[in-house]
């Protein structure tokens, strides 16, 4: 390990309503792999975005190669040698490998692009990384792993001195990860500073030299990797914060009937052999880190995405759900984490959105019975305390929390008994959050059964009667609320050290 190449000190950044970074410190040395860890929303990405100029910091200093620096955009950062390798690859599939690496700065002779020179230069980069990729190959023919290596080569070609890997292994196979690590070790030998963002505990142990942990936008501490255990890191990640109002015991009797039973559900890489039961009147929390496959599981159950295999039973009866229509007929309602895209039709009114799932019940002959529609919409505006001037208001004009209530009304009007709430309070302010919580508890009391996917530990511990934990597409555990602690859940949500 060499001298410090990059220091971020007292970095502060606020967005309206959120203190995203609270005086965070971070440093990288030459020839070190430095892990950056933390729960979802801990501020890792924000910190890296401040570093590379996507966000402007409110205060604090960034010292790079001994000089105080501020990059105004990624281009400036790149030119100075600070490069991000993103989780989602930014490659143009129809171009060749070399053309992708040198996009925007092609070698030219006159006005002609000099493909030969680009291929030669790309070959040199690959040789330096000891990887075997043909620069003339079309990008879309490569595997995800190989494409990522091209990203790395592209980063190197910028004369990078600091490379940030943002969850690089998420889409890779075991063999590809091995290869990636070989390259990272190589880069370390070449004295580059490497930032490695990942949730995978085993990788952290294998590849990194130090670990910096963040929590809720604050800096928690930095450890030397081979002197600490997984538990040390988890303890730092979850902290000792006392969470508001956690549930202490399940409100659901042991013998409550099972309303939904999912067995051996498979749907792509993100849903692997998931089985669980949901009881009447229960709020079943789904916890896990980003990319654990919770949303994918919900969408597969709801028929929004195709599934490969697995059985679903409702009230003991086996059902076939191939599309959302089938699911709605079975009395399942799905509230997406992305309301604007999947929940509401913004150009329609509150009333029109409310009856979207069961318009056929509000017909008189051929025509929509707008009076009845209005009446039922008003009923639910009142019972859910939705704030809207009238049910004829377009939902686009409502706040996030009230839009969420319109979506809830849609499923209640359809008389759904099983409700899947996917991140029900994301992007909703604190007051409205509490209202949604109360509403969920009330619905459970009334006998509705709820699956609640949440990335917020507070929410999980406060609302759930039982918690299913997922990690990388698999169910890794099931915890009763009486036994649930942050540590237990986080342990299940992260991969074990092999």
């Amino acid at each position, binding site marked *: 390990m060499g001298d410090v190449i990059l220091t971020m000190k007292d970095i502060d950044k606020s967005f309206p309503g959120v203190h995203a970074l609270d005086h965070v410190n971070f440093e990288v040395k030459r020839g070190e792999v430095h892990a950056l860890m933390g729960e979802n929303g801990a501020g890792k990405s924000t910190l890296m975005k401040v570093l590379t100029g996507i966000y402007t910091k409110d205060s604090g200093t960034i010292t790079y190669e001994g000089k105080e620096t501020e990059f105004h955009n990624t281009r400036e950062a790149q030119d100075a040698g600070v490069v991000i390798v993103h989780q989602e690859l930014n490659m143009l599939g129809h171009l060749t490998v070399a053309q992708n690496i040198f996009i925007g700065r092609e070698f030219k002779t006159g006005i002609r692009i000099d493909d030969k020179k680009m291929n030669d230069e790309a070959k040199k980069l690959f040789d330096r990384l000891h990887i075997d990729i043909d620069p003339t190959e079309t990008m879309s023919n490569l595997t995800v792993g190989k494409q990522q290596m091209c990203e790395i080569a592209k980063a190197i070609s910028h004369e990078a001195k600091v490379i940030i890997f943002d969850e690089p292994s998420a889409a890779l196979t075991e063999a590809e990860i091995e290869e990636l690590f070989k390259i990272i070790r190589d880069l370390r030998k070449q004295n580059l500073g490497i930032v490695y963002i990942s949730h995978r505990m085993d990788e952290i142990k294998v590849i990194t030299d130090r670990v910096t942990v963040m929590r809720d936008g604050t800096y928690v501490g930095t450890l030397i990797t081979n002197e600490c255990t997984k538990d040390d890191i988890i303890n730092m990640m979850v902290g000792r914060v006392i969470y508001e109002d956690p549930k202490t015991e399940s409100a659901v009797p042991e013998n409550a009937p099972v309303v939904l039973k999912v067995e051996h559900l498979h749907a792509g890489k993100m849903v692997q052999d998931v089985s669980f039961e949901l009881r009447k009147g229960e709020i079943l929390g789904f916890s896990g880190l980003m990319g654990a496959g919770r949303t994918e599981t919900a969408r597969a159950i709801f028929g929004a995405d195709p599934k490969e295999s697995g059985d679903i039973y409702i009230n003991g009866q086996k059902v076939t759900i191939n599309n*959302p229509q089938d699911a709605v007929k079975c009395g399942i309602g*799905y509230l997406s984490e992305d309301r604007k*895209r999947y929940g509401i039709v913004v150009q329609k009114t509150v009333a029109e959105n409310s009856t979207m799932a069961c*318009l*056929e019940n509000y017909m008189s002959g*051929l025509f929509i019975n707008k009076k009845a529609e209005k009446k039922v919409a008003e009923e639910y505006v009142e019972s859910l305390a939705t704030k809207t001037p009238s049910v004829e208001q377009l939902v686009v004009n409502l706040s996030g929390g009230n839009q969420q209530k319109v979506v809830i009304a849609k499923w209640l009007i359809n008389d759904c008994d099983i409700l899947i709430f996917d991140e029900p309070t994301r992007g909703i302010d604190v007051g409205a959050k509490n209202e949604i919580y109360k509403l969920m508890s009330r619905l459970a009391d009334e006998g509705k059964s709820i699956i609640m996917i949440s990335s917020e530990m507070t929410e999980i511990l406060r609302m759930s009667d039982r918690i299913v934990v997922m990690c990388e597409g698999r169910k890794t555990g099931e915890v009763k609320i009486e036994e649930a602690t942050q540590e237990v859940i986080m342990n299940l949500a992260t991969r074990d050290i092999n």
Partner: protein
Amino acid sequence: MEKIKQHPIVKKLGFNRIVLCAVLILMYILFSLTSKGFAGLPRILSALNYAYFLGFLSLGVTFVIATGGIDFSIGPVMFCAALVSGFCLTSHGMPVVLCLVISILVGFLFGCFNGYLVAYWTVPPFIVSMASMNIAKGLASVFTKTQSVSWPQAAEAAGWFRKIVKVGNFPVGLVIFIVAAVICSLLLNNTRAGRYILSLGSNKEAVRLSGVNVRKWEMLAYVICGTLVGIAAIFYVAAYTTVQPGYGDQYNNEAIAGCVMGGTSMAGGLASIGGTVIGVFIISLLQEGILAIGINKNYQLVITGLIVIVAVYADVVARRRKN
């Protein structure tokens, strides 16, 4: 200005539509002043002849645009329907009633074809309708052996169908068109089909996740459009007698112009039948006026082209402001 816009009567009628009506009246006054003899029944009846078939095209394409799609095959399909049914009448001696049904059937089938490809195979509407435009032209030419077809004159026994346009000087066509527009408006605003068509034009995924069979309803929009195009063909031949194979695309632009001018958004989700009706009258008056003043008829192409761009740009600006 804002005050006027917020007035309950203005809100009910729609500010946009009131402006369009004013434009229509202004245009009429302008043409009457610049061209001798423009004011008077004959010109109005002539403009109406144009408005009927264009109106049905425009009503039809309103449903498709409401889904966020587009149909460039309406003009050629109208000609195809008129040619195929006309050929059945003149060369095979089929009864007129049957031929009128055939005309509607041809439009209906093209609607099914377009709608199925768009909704179930998810081929982009632009491509589908461009392709079926050529298919319609080609089929019509093959069927009629590239001969133009003339429908019977009013004086002939088989010419009775022309009464759908006018009886004496009474514009029966106008009545039929307005009734059709009212039915379309009810269909769009008061039935499940219309509700789902508009909703899926605004956010298809949200509608799908509400358990609605979006494919069925999206296809239906094209089927409604095709059927109305088949009816448009009847009004075309009732007014203009002769149809030539290989044409029809000039009406696409005019029908779409009438529709977007009336406040239907190219992005889908927003549509106004009333607006479409006024838009159609404006386009029809425009072509009659240009004819009357005696300037080069091709200016009409230029003007309708510009109208489409201006109307769509206005919609884009309005959307950007909302966001």
